[in-house]
């Protein structure tokens, strides 16, 4: 998204207006629609600011952010659309492209940016990094680094919801590369076998790292659900209304019937698999630009809201300015925050070592 509406961007409302008429969207107030837009913009600006921090240097000439940085630019409508449907007993777990979901569930961007910087004020006290954001108080269970490894945990969250007798669900997000992991298929089977309210969400951005879907996956991704007797669906992840309309059906079904489903949401990421990865070996600049120009989820939704008279272009601009300022403030906070200490390394390892007065076991827990 450029700062000002640009002549090169074809701002068109979502192609299928019917999704805006779906009850879950038609019932939204103007304020709620603007809020969806704001969340998407906040994610975009956070990601762009973190990208600048990653590629730039700190005052000492060192890196602001270590390791990998998997950015969510282009996929914002998915996290925002899905997380906007969460109730008290709906849970979210995802893989390492986890910043968007974290913002969408309401995590503080200061704590997120500080985590990227490896600071003690980070959401995981600087112990998790970009791939490992968590907010259990917001039903957000990470943030997981191994492709597909989080999906059985998602089934476990759904199991926990059901075991405790709550009407809820778990949304277990993965990329299109994860669908070929064995753990995902084991999770599918368990969820279907035990009627667990788990919705497996495949964010299909077309590439598992640098390998296209055509070169890595046989058949239709979501349709594999049929092998487990599960319902499945597909939708366009560039339209937040469509994401919400589609997911709403499956979430309701999970709540009412405790049934799992697989939903494939077609999307596109603008940045490399991670920022450090070359982005020119497997796709063209033209392809990326085409998506940015014609299918950008924020531009599409802005055009939709303008057409609906929900807000003005000036209001959209103000939201964008505020999101930029928020991301900048997050970076300043992160930069100014202290790192954890060496003494902090061995905290948060065991519940017992962090709660010594309640410790029941004896003996040495650590070996230095």
């Amino acid at each position, binding site marked *: 998204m450029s700062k000002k509406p640009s002549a090169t961007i074809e701002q068109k409302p979502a192609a299928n207006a019917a999704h805006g008429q779906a009850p879950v969207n038609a019932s939204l107030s103007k304020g709620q629609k603007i809020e969806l837009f704001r969340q998407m913009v906040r994610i975009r600006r956070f990601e762009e600011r973190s990208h600048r921090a990653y590629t730039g240097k700190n005052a000492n000439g060192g890196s602001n952010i270590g390791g990998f940085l998997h950015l969510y630019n282009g996929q914002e409508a998915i996290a925002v659309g899905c997380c906007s449907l969460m109730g008290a007993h709906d849970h979210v777990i995802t893989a390492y492209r986890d910043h968007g979901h974290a913002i969408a569930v309401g995590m503080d961007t200061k704590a997120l940016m500080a985590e990227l910087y490896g600071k003690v004020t980070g959401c995981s006290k600087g*112990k998790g990094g970009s791939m490992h954001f968590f907010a259990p108080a917001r039903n957000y269970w990470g943030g997981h680094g191994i492709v597909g490894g989080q999906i059985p945990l998602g089934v476990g969250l759904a199991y926990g919801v059901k075991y405790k007798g709550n009407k809820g669900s778990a949304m277990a997000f993965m990329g299109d590369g994860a669908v070929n992991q064995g753990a995902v298929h084991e999770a599918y089977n368990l969820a279907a076998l035990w009627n667990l309210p788990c919705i497996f969400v495949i964010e299909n951005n077309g590439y598992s790292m640098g390998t296209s879907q055509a070169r890595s996956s046989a058949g239709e991704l979501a349709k594999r659900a049929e092998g487990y007797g599960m319902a499945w669906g597909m939708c366009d992840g560039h339209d937040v209304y469509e994401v919400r309309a589609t997911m709403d059906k499956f979430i309701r079904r999970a709540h009412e019937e405790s049934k799992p489903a697989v939903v494939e949401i077609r999307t596109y990421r603008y940045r490399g698999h991670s920022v450090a990865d070359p982005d020119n070996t497997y796709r063209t600049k033209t392809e990326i630009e085409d998506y940015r120009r014609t299918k950008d989820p924020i531009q599409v939704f802005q055009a939709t809201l303008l057409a609906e008279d929900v807000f003005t272009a000036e209001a959209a601009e103000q939201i964008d300015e505020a999101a930029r300022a928020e991301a900048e403030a997050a970076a300043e906070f992160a930069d100014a925050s202290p790192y954890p200490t060496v003494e902090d390394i061995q905290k948060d390892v065991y519940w017992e070592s962090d709660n010594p007065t309640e410790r029941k076991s004896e003996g040495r827990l650590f*070996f230095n």
Partner: protein
Amino acid sequence: MPLIEYREAIRNALAEELTRDPNVVVMGEEVGQFQGAYKVTKGLLEKFGPTRIADTPISEAGFIGMGIGASMLGVRPVMELMFWSFYSVAFDQILNNAANVRYMSGGQINCPIVIRGPANGGTNVGATHSHTPENILAAHPGVKVVVPSTAYDAKGLLKSAIRDNDPVFFLENTILYGEKGEVPDEEYVIPLGKADVKREGRDLTIVTYGRPVIQSLAAAELLAKEHDISVEVVDLRTIRPLDIDTVLASVRKTHRVLVVEEQKPFCGVGAQLTYMIQAEAFDDLDAPIARLCTIDAPAIYSPPVEAEQLPNPQRILKAALALLD
């Protein structure tokens, strides 16, 4: 005191904890209708019903991961691995997810899961089913590892494991399942991380855990009768946390140490123990620390030869005599 089998002691611990805490569930392959591959869970389905005692498909990565996810929400799953050897197909779940989630979340998430099942050789089932992964498990900060040798210990330690808020890996032994031991009717728990001196002695300390405790006690008996050697046998019971203080106290008494373990020698639990003993009690040692392990090869099938690959009373006796020579 009533004499009951090791498997029954485990079953009783499960039943008591299932009764005590509605968040406890038992899951695994064949734990319900089939009554347990080794009959550890016999009768539990009838008593507690299919919501609490759940048969899973043969799908260790899936169901162990599911248990970990459920534990994050406050369920306290006790997951049975039919063999701990199958941990390898759930390795990512056990050692990336269970072991790390508390740390990576900055202490926000707990994982109060127990994974239990047998981990031993000696049953002629070949290399794939004879792994003893306690060293590999215990190498991961964040987890606890328990290896009980007797019915009494198994019951008391499992009850502590189920009440623990950290992930606990509980390694049993198919050869010990039928061994009877004295177990009181009244409730008791044994804290994790507390070693037990199973036999007192003067001349030599054998530090061991699991089935080799039983074999070391047999060897100690022979050494006393035939060689007039007084052996102290220290049963670690828990590998992590580790009660090194009880080990060191015994070393300071006998001044000689033989570590016996059903592990391969390379980077085994014994390697860690011998490092710690020399670091902390060097001046108390009258001889280099000796170690008796499983002979360093994949588990051989051939039944009479497998018995020689593993620790056994005769091998322990020889190692003790060599150390005292």
